[in-house]
């Protein structure tokens, strides 16, 4: 059952009706039942993996919470403890908590790693063994990949880490924990919610609010427009270039990378708009996953605007803990002695960023191309920080004014190109193909492909190209308005009713007429659901 299907629409409508019929106190049970129905029709065979995760985090959180509360109680009853005694007690409790947390993390991530990477790692190990003369068949599992495991595992583990850190109290009701992990709109491609932000919204019943209901439907429609009238058409060009990369050179490759960038943005952010729209109908505000990433002026800013919930997860649970760990602090002292104050101080932070981006890369899939994709982003970010002093001197010497619109536009364009080059690694059919594509990109200078009609040879008709151009233009205008702080739906809400209806009906008709349906498109599937 995918987001764009009659079955999903039916589930959404029935859930909404039942949700508002049920007493406030029990409305969360409707969401849980619907999540169960969704999983039953979408991934029943592998559902037990999710059930194991739910049971594990429920139990681990309860144990951690018990330690937290006992610790607090002990401190309350023994107010006369010295600072050193308190420190020793804290260390003792931390040790026990760490053991419990580690067990939970190993179990949750163990399932993900085994199902997602075992076959790949087994293949690679045996390829190496063959080189040294050891023969044998690589063992493999044939288990199906559970629906949404890459997303719900991160969401589930963030809960137990937050309880471990004392930020949250554990939820005693296992059914409520199950709802937090399995809430049906988010299961396939996120956003990766945090318990502190999402759970109470799921559990407390929301009264029907017509404005919120309307906003939810409008957001869903906006996502549908992005997905069906942009992502799918961009996908035709991107598929043509990436699947037949040996036939293309120079700017054709760059075009493919840029078009894929637009495709994946329209696809993923469109999907997120739809997911958030579905939840808003129930009065639930899910985490924002995109904030106009292509307006970013640097790659690091891009990652604060793109797939925000994944970036935030990596920052809070990988980058910060590593950067501030004793081991990295000790490393920093050593690297300062060897490389000097500036570089030496930054090296451990770069390493932490490197590890976080490596994980972002492999999170996408078990292939070397994803490793390089992650590392490409890390190298660009670390490199730009390292070279910042040189860069500033260059700008001063060349007397370039950096406080003007044209410079900001240049920065935006530069970031888009750098990110697009990274996308070649993630979208190419293999790492070898991506390297070949990069070589071909620099092998010919053919900017005339943008004016000599070549654009019409990638699979789209001139009429479709024009329609895509209109959608991109609309997306840019809407994004600029949002960037300036305008709230589109609130602004529309203040207009006359006739105008509001004209806009909504116009959008629906536009999707119905120009939406990408048919066998040459894959409207029902989303790029990120495969991860």
């Amino acid at each position, binding site marked *: 059952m995918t987001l764009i299907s009659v079955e999903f629409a039916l589930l959404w409508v029935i859930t909404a009706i039942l949700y508002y019929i049920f007493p406030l106190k029990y409305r969360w049970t409707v969401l849980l039942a619907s999540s169960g129905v969704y999983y039953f029709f979408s991934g029943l065979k592998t559902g037990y993996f999710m059930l194991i995760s739910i049971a594990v985090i429920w139990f681990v959180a309860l144990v951690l919470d018990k330690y937290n509360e006992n610790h607090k109680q002990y401190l309350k009853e023994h107010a006369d403890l010295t600072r050193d005694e308190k420190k020793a007690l804290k260390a003792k409790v931390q040790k026990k908590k760490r053991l419990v947390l580690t067990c939970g993390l190993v179990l949750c991530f163990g399932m993900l790693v085994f199902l997602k990477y075992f076959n790949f790692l087994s293949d690679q190990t045996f390829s190496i063994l063959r080189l040294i003369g050891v023969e044998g068949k690589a063992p493999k599992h044939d288990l199906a990949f559970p629906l949404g495991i890459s997303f719900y595992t991160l969401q589930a583990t963030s809960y137990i880490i937050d309880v471990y*850190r004392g930020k949250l109290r554990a939820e005693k009701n296992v059914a409520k924990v199950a709802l937090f992990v399995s809430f049906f709109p988010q299961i396939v491609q996120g956003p990766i919610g945090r318990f502190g932000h999402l759970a109470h919204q799921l559990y407390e019943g929301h009264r029907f609010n017509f404005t919120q209901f309307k906003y939810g439907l409008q957001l869903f429609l906006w996502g549908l427009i992005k997905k069906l009238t942009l992502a799918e058409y961009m996908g035709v060009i991107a598929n043509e270039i990436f699947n037949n990369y040996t036939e293309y050179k120079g700017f054709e490759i760059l075009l493919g990378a840029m078009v894929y960038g637009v495709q994946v943005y329209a696809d993923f952010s469109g999907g997120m708009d739809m997911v958030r729209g579905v939840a808003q109908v129930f009065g639930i505000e899910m985490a924002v996953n995109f904030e106009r990433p292509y307006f970013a002026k640097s790659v690091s800013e891009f990652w604060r605007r793109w797939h925000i919930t994944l970036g935030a997860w990596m*920052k809070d649970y990988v980058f910060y803990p590593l950067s501030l760990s004793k081991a990295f602090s000790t490393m920093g002292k050593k690297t300062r002695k060897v490389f000097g104050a500036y570089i030496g101080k930054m090296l451990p932070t770069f390493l932490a960023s490197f590890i976080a981006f490596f994980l972002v890369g492999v999170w996408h899939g078990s292939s070397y191309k994803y490793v390089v994709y992650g590392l490409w982003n890390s190298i660009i970010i670390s490199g730009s920080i390292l070279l910042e002093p040189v860069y500033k001197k260059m700008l001063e010497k060349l007397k370039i004014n950096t406080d003007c619109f044209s410079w900001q536009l240049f920065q935006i364009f530069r970031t888009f190109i750098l990110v697009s080059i990274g996308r070649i690694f993630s979208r190419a059919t293999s790492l070898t193909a991506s390297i070949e594509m990069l070589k071909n990109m620099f092998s010919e200078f053919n900017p005339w492909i943008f004016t000599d009609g070549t654009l019409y040879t990638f699979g789209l008709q001139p009429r479709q190209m024009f329609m895509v151009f209109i959608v991109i233009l609309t997306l840019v205008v809407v994004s600029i308005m949002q960037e300036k702080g305008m709230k589109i739906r609130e602004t529309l809400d203040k207009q006359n009713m006739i105008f509001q209806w004209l806009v909504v009906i116009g959008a629906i008709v536009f999707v119905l007429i120009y939406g990408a349906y048919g066998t040459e498109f894959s409207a029902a599937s989303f790029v990120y659901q495969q991860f």
Partner: protein
Amino acid sequence: MKEQLMKILNELRPDVDFENETALVTDGILDSFDIVSLVGEINAEFDITVGVDELEPENFDTVAAMLDLIADLAD
């Protein structure tokens, strides 16, 4: 204490008006690399340990919040 903190902040990011900014982390003025450098300097200067648990935007959005955090951890 404020003087020491302002010295660290101004050396880290001379381009930022720390006295008047009220959403240093929330608005993305300080990024994660800045935060890690800042925490390293604060730990060394005030002989405290700012842990991962304390890395919340509300603890770093303003100079006043940072001073509160330092005072809390020093106790």
